[in-house]
């Protein structure tokens, strides 16, 4: 569905990552893990065509609207400067499907309402987006991406700044979108547990390169996580068989950060 090979990414002349490849298929969740500054966000912005690749190989020359019809971006929810109504925020996802000079049609409004209903927040349509909780706002951002009707969803830390319950709720919806909805999902996160919970394909990034890729059981070993994040990490199984990653807080840096 999306396949990018050997990308060199960065800003201006500053190269942040080299030889990055990324593929995702319909119904699959790809989970991008790595410490702050490893290049996750830059990779996302390159895939979305917001910044050019640095190796001179252009991504397919598509217009913004053409890209938006294939790939929907779910940013970290933020408070906009104006108090838009939730339905209006979701309607903005329809823009790439409207003619350039037109305003949303009745069909667009119906699509927006359907996207909200699908995430179980149909009753929020008339609410003021700027007054929602962080969890609700993240759901609205996902609804906007659904209204975009793009097969690929690119999510930048969708659970950042959400409380414990909302993280689980958002992850459950994401899992459902991929498994039942057939979306191809690429998401970044700081929590390796989420990769296990979603049973996603993991791409572990470290210093601008892909360190390992595959199922969480194989990629997210205590050894690798300790090395990448520079803290002692234990990966343990709970009684139900699910893996959890636990950093040691008492003795965080037993060795110098590996390079």
């Amino acid at each position, binding site marked *: 569905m999306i396949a990018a090979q050997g990308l060199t990414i960065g*800003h201006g002349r500053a190269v942040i990552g080299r030889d990055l490849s990324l593929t995702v298929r319909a119904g699959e969740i790809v989970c991008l893990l790595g410490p702050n500054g490893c290049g996750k966000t830059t990779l996302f912005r390159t895939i979305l065509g*917001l910044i050019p690749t640095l190796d001179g190989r252009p991504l397919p020359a598509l217009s913004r609207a053409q890209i*938006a019809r294939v790939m929907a971006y779910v*940013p970290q929810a933020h408070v*906009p*400067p104006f108090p838009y109504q939730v339905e209006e925020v979701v309607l903005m996802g329809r823009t790439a499907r409207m003619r*350039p000079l037109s305003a949303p049609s009745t069909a667009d409004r119906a699509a927006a309402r359907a996207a909200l209903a699908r995430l179980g927040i149909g009753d929020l349509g008339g609410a*003021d987006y700027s007054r929602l909780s962080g969890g609700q706002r993240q759901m609205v951002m996902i609804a906007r991406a659904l209204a975009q009707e793009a097969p690929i969803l690119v999510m930048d830390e969708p659970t950042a700044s959400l409380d414990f319950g909302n993280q689980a709720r958002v992850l459950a919806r994401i899992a459902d979108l991929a498994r039942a909805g057939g979306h191809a999902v690429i998401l970044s996160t700081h929590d390796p547990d989420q990769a296990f919970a979603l049973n996603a394909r993991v791409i572990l990034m470290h210093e601008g390169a892909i360190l390992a890729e595959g199922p969480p059981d194989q990629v997210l070993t205590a050894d690798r996580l300790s090395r990448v994040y520079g803290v002692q990490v234990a990966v343990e199984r709970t009684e139900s068989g699910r893996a959890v990653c636990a950093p040691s807080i008492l003795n965080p840096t037993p060795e110098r950060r590996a390079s």
Partner: protein
Amino acid sequence: MTEGAIATHRPARRLSVVALLGLALLAGALVALTIGPFRLTLAEVLAALTGRAGGTAEVVVWNIRLPRVLAAMLVGAALAAAGASYQVLFRNPLVSPDILGVSSGAALGAVCGIFLSLPVIAIQGFAFLGGLAAVGLVIFVAQAVRGVDQTLVLVLTGVVMGALAGAATSLLKVMADPYDQLPAITFWLLGSLASTTRADLGPVLPAVVVGLVPLILLRWRINLLSLGDDEARALGVDAPRLRLLVIAAATLITASVVAIAGVVGWVGLVIPHIARMLVGPSFATLLPVAAILGAGYLLLVDTLCRTLATIEIPLGILTAVLGAPFFLYLLARGRRGWT
């Protein structure tokens, strides 16, 4: 924003709000035509407008009051529409149409014209070109500075350009003839419609219309600029190009009306706020409502300007006196989102 604003979000309701405000504006304009040293009744005004009154009433209505009433509404509508556009564009509800230096540029142009003792039409032309040139320069510089947040560069360059134009204006004021030119300069800088004639409206109206058309056509997409570049682009909008287009349109509108009215502050800053309180932030409704409210507001203020005292009160003074307290009220309310 409360229940009242949410209730008006339905498209049909919004349309009726626009229609209602439009009717109120029309009524206000008719009333304003009756007010002045030469007293007229509403019936006399209507008779004069339809050409059945004859004599002094028709001369007063057609040659003196109507041009001024139309000019006040045009200037108000234009400044409010430009202000609403800029506030979305710069993702900041505290932005006025002056932010990119259009007023300072226009002021410098007009002051140049007055300093050179040019005829009125040339002074207006200079003001218009000065406004366009200032913003054009700001955009040129901002485009040359790459790799930094474009919006921030635009705002900062606008501030710098405004300060430079202000310095040049001050220099001309120091060098101007203190008995003849300086009062004219001062009066222009305070804004006034006292000398507006029918001939002034001729070139300004089409320029404002040309500026408004792209804003109306792109009314939905302009909303997306308030999300920031990355998000707007990911949603399928070529944000940098759209931003340039909106700046060009809003600058054309502002520069045209500043050329006939001088520097009239606060309208473009305060009126879009009131419009958002009434109908919410969606640009498609915000634009017409802000324009109608701006027209009504400046009609009211200008009518006060010409009737409150025996001498004309400069427009810019009254808009500041009325606008500043309202702005402070908004600050004191301190609501998140600045509805």
